[in-house]
């Protein structure tokens, strides 16, 4: 133990553990640690517990029972976790955006209600979850093109559904779920264009028996498909060369389906190509990451307890790799148990005993991954060779063509592209273009993407007003290092 306020690190008045993100992983982690009397601060940028998957779950149940029913049992599950966090001693701070984490010594900077603050915990659990993979097609910046996840957020947080004709395009489990929910809510779905083809289904078939061990996922997937077909929603498979067209707003989705060209006229296009870990914080901290080839995304390198390359910093949930809400909650518990034991609150054998159930459940749920990964594999054909006019960096308005030209002119790293084209330099800090840029370099130079690397992510990862920085409050000094 070191530092000026040496004492019981578990009772650190600042926070022994800061958990970032209140989705399934963050809620489970906070609750598990608080059970042992460890001081926990749970920070989340949303106004209520739940993360994106369980977004606004408490209020939806209380005030909008129709929406609550429509969103189904997978959503309703979140309420139990939220209840447990509420009943615990966890210090939950909503509307708190974390904009920087220093690793040496550990310090978490966040803003809430226009006030910037600093916490100096002993351990950090990053549970910032996933974000939708960017789908750069020509016209995807037009008003009227949104992520399919956005439509879910509108339903969960405000009870709103799209008005007018809706087209849905892409792949992944969430695509059909959103289509089904919107269709049941009475939306006018003009069609679902799936980039998944029959060939993908055939490739995935041999993996079915193993996946059956986690069969609830499969039943859900098939159920959604039948439900949509029963409602007469047009499902088009194997969509290629998608483009969104329109004059100042989205008017139609055009794509190739086999040899024919299909045009879906609509007022709103919802796109989805699966989700990827949100690595913004773990990248900003300079933690080690690896490329996960089966799903084409970066994830932080983690121990079996979820510990990163920096001791005392953990990642739990989809931010460490996409496994869904149930596994995320187990990972949260597992990370917390490791920290609680490290802080001396439980013995190693007690930790192992408590963690065993989570490890076992987690393994069961992971059985379905190989099949899902194959079926909804990364969008290798659809989006990896974007047409020159396609905007890649939405913030700084940089096209695929400009990026290719810069690569040809000698910019061979994401950071040099950033300096040259200003891609990734806007407010989103590369969240929307980072994966695309690394992929484009990798393909242009025929170099493995893990050698290409990723943008160097700079703090603040959320824009910080100067007046907030000038009034930064520093709550405490580190009470103990995580040695």
């Amino acid at each position, binding site marked *: 133990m070191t530092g000026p306020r040496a004492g019981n690190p578990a009772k650190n008045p600042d926070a022994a553990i800061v958990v970032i993100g209140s989705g399934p992983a963050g809620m489970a982690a906070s609750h598990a640690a608080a059970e042992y009397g460890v001081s926990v601060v749970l920070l989340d940028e949303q106004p209520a517990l739940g993360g994106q998957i369980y977004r606004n779950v408490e209020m939806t149940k209380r005030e909008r029972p129709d929406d609550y029913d429509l969103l189904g049992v997978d959503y309703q599950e979140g309420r139990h976790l939220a209840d447990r966090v509420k009943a615990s001693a966890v210090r939950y701070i909503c509307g708190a955006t974390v904009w920087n984490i220093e690793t040496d010594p550990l310090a978490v900077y966040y803003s809430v209600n226009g006030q910037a603050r600093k916490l100096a915990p002993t351990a950090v659990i990053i549970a910032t979850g996933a974000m939708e993979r960017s789908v750069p097609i020509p016209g995807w910046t037009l008003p009227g093109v949104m992520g399919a996840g956005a439509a879910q957020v509108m339903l969960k947080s405000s009870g709103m559904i799209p008005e007018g004709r809706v087209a849905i395009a892409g792949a992944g489990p969430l695509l059909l779920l959103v289509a089904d929910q919107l269709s049941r809510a009475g939306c006018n779905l003009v069609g679902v264009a799936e980039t998944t083809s029959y060939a993908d289904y055939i490739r995935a078939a041999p993996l079915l028996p193993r996946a059956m061990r986690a069969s609830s996922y499969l039943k859900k997937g098939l159920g959604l498909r039948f439900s949509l077909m029963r409602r007469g929603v047009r499902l088009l498979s194997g969509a290629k060369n998608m483009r969104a067209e329109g004059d100042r707003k989205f008017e139609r989705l055009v794509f190739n389906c086999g040899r024919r060209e299909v045009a879906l006229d609509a007022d709103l296009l919802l796109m989805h190509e699966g989700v990827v870990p949100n690595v913004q914080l773990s990248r900003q901290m300079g933690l080690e990451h690896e490329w996960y080839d089966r799903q084409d995304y970066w994830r932080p390198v983690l121990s079996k307890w979820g510990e990163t390359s920096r001791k005392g910093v953990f990642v739990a949930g989809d931010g460490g790799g996409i496994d869904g809400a149930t596994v995320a909650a187990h990972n949260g518990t597992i990370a917390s148990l490791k920290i609680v034991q490290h802080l001396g609150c439980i013995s190693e054998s007690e930790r192992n005993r408590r963690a065993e159930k989570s490890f076992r459940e987690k393994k069961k749920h992971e059985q379905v991954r190989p099949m899902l990964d194959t079926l909804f594999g990364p969008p290798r054909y659809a989006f990896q060779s974007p047409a020159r006019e396609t905007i890649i960096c939405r913030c700084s308005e940089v096209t695929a063509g400009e990026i290719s030209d810069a690569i040809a002119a000698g910019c061979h790293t994401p950071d040099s592209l950033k300096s040259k084209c200003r891609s990734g330099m806007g*407010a989103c800090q590369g969240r929307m273009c980072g994966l695309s840029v690394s992929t484009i370099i990798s393909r242009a130079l025929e170099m493995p993407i893990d050698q290409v690397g990723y943008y160097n992510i700079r*703090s603040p990862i959320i824009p910080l007003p100067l007046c907030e920085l000038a009034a930064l409050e520093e709550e405490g000094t580190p009470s103990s290092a995580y040695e």
Partner: protein
Amino acid sequence: MNNKADVIIVGAGLHGSSAAIHIAARGRRVIVLDKGVGGRHSSASNAGGVRRLWRHPDELPLACEAASMWNHIEEIVGDNCGYRQSGHLKIAENKTDIAKLEDRLTTMKQLGFDHEELIDRDELRKWAPEVASHCAGALLCREDGFASPFRTTSAFQNKAVSNGAELALNQAVAGIDKKAGSWIIQTQDHLFEAPILLNCAGAWGDKIAEMIGDTVPLSAVAPTMMVTPPMPRFLEPVVGAVSRKLSFKQAPNGIVLIGGGYRGKLDRDTGFTQVDYSALKLSAQTVIDLFPIMKNAQVVRAWSGIEGQTPDSLPVIGQGLSDANAYHAFGFSSHGFQLAPVVGKLMAELIYDGASSLPIEPFSPARFHDVEIRNPETAQLSA
């Protein structure tokens, strides 16, 4: 690559590239080594200030020559480097500050420099309409400006290559020997050989100096920059302040760059830097105090680059102490950007003409072994 050359330059940043341009132009074979891709630290992560204002008198002869080179920089390196002659201001906030500006002006006149002028409260508002009402005046250099650090570093590197210099990147120097009148420079996987060695290793310059037997005191520092999203245009010149650390400007695309020498943490061995927000608190307050329009402006990105700082904040330029065939040009202490075009030219002169056309004695590495101690306050940190 044939690893024998007439000159080996260590460091492919702005100063190494500038020297390579001039040496290669004399028909000499040059190899430029870099531990990375060159220019990742001070060269490309500085504020891009092209400034004579408030510069140390010893640097002014070089800075004046550099200023005229910047005026036709496109002819020199084949790109205009985003250079803009915007003017630089040093703002006085009270009478004490004004007195310091007057002293400075007197000194400049005595030394025969006329690039700086004192402007009053009203004139200051013409140059910077959004400046805070308490600001009392400023020193102005109309011919100062700024350029894009990335474009500039790329342009200098490209010009060096087109002049015939060879870049050997990802070649960290592991050891330096001298055999039969030639330097043998060992990197991880190669040996390089040349009769002349030029050390342009920036914040790592003292380590290279040590390898050839010269002791030069240098500390590594990581000044921090912050940038905002595009804002409506409100400021043309680059702004500093007399009594506070500030370097402040708005780029043509509306983004505002805030520097001033507030330092982050660093690890020179790994190149790791970490922004120190506790220090930047003061930087944010300074900006708001001088430009109230910035109160709600947002910081979208902050970063620190590693720079070499000498005890007197002046660079190390000149012949080696222990070997006449070694030369140094490093340790520019956060204000070497403007000097890059001229220092490269002087190094070529020093090496091949036996003397430089401008006075560089004040920058000799020998000065650290004299008893005389300079006042570091006079050399400002605001490249």
